[in-house]
């Protein structure tokens, strides 16, 4: 107990936070899908903040080209599985956090099997197929989703499936259908400034903490965009989109039959 108070003293001391919010964090279960540029800072700050139970999913190994932004990893970790190194680093940071690793490409079956065990899902993936799959599963399984995405010098942040003013929007309310491959660049093609996913990832971690503790107002029904080049932050109010109902799977059976890889190619 003494260690608990010492470790989280700066948060517990916060007006409006206190022991009550800290205990909520220690009971919370958060799943972070993707342990890359966004996932690393999300995981690091959530572990440091004292989230009780942290799921980490990624099927990839660490490459040299990851190191400009994937800050849980070092040169000596090249070739190792991201989830293994992430778990070791997070455990060294805070061994009171229970870390569960999924060294697999996240798929529809895993959504249905594992989402019910978590309070909040964090989308830290790097492709539209995963993003649409995770979004649709969160809608069907009624899970709050903290969304972050980056491109070159810009980032987007949103909280989906959280009711505010009687509505709860999701990604399909913004973009009902995925773009075709030639309509967007990925990070490998377009590049990304290393600190940019750090900025957006830390903001995702902040939204997770706000959702769990009830401190502040989460970014529900809004999308924030950040441009690192000119320090422009713009927050857009979102609304329900009638097209989204037509393109979203309405049952888990339809969800399981959806070919996301094909949809996003």
């Amino acid at each position, binding site marked *: 107990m003494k260690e608990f108070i010492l470790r989280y003293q700066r948060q517990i001391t916060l007006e409006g936070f206190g022991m009550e919010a800290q205990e909520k964090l220690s009971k919370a279960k958060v799943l972070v899908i993707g342990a890359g540029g966004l996932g690393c800072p999300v995981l690091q700050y959530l572990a440091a903040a004292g989230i009780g139970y942290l799921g980490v999913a990624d099927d990839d190994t660490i490459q040299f080209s990851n190191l400009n932004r994937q800050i849980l990893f070092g040169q000596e970790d090249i070739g190792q599985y991201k989830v293994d190194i992430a778990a070791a680093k997070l455990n060294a940071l805070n061994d009171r956090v229970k870390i569960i690793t999924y060294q697999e490409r996240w798929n529809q079956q895993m959504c249905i099997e594992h989402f019910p065990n978590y309070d909040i899902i964090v989308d830290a993936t790097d*492709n539209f197929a995963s993003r649409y799959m995770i979004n649709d599963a969160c809608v069907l399984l009624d899970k709050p989703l903290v969304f*972050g995405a980056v491109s070159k010098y810009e980032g987007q942040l949103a909280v989906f499936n959280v009711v505010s003013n009687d509505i709860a929007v999701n990604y399909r309310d913004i973009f009902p259908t995925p773009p*075709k491959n030639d309509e967007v660049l*990925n990070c490998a093609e*377009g590049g990304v400034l290393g600190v940019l996913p750090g900025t957006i990832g830390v903001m995702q971690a902040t939204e997770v903490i706000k959702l769990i503790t009830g401190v502040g107002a989460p970014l529900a029904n809004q999308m924030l965009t950040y*441009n690192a080049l000119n320090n422009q932050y713009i927050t857009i109010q979102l609304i329900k989109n009638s097209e989204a109902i037509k393109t979203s799977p309405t049952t888990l059976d339809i969800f399981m039959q959806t070919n996301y890889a094909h949809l996003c190619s």
Partner: protein
Amino acid sequence: MSIEIIFFGQLADKTGCSNVVVDNPGSIDTLSMVMKMQYPNLATAKFVIAVNNKIVFDNEPIEENAKLAFMPPFSGG
């Protein structure tokens, strides 16, 4: 009277500018048409439009001096 448009992400690459001030064409549909004529690369781009920080999907009228945002989806992480 004019309106200001900010192009986000790759849309700025496609138009060659991050923002532009144009005469108010009066409605969202007319604006989309005018922009795609002015910047042909936009025709193959996916984006949503926000007017004065509110997303719009219908052919709504555009107020004078409105600030618009053309926002593409990002996938990177």
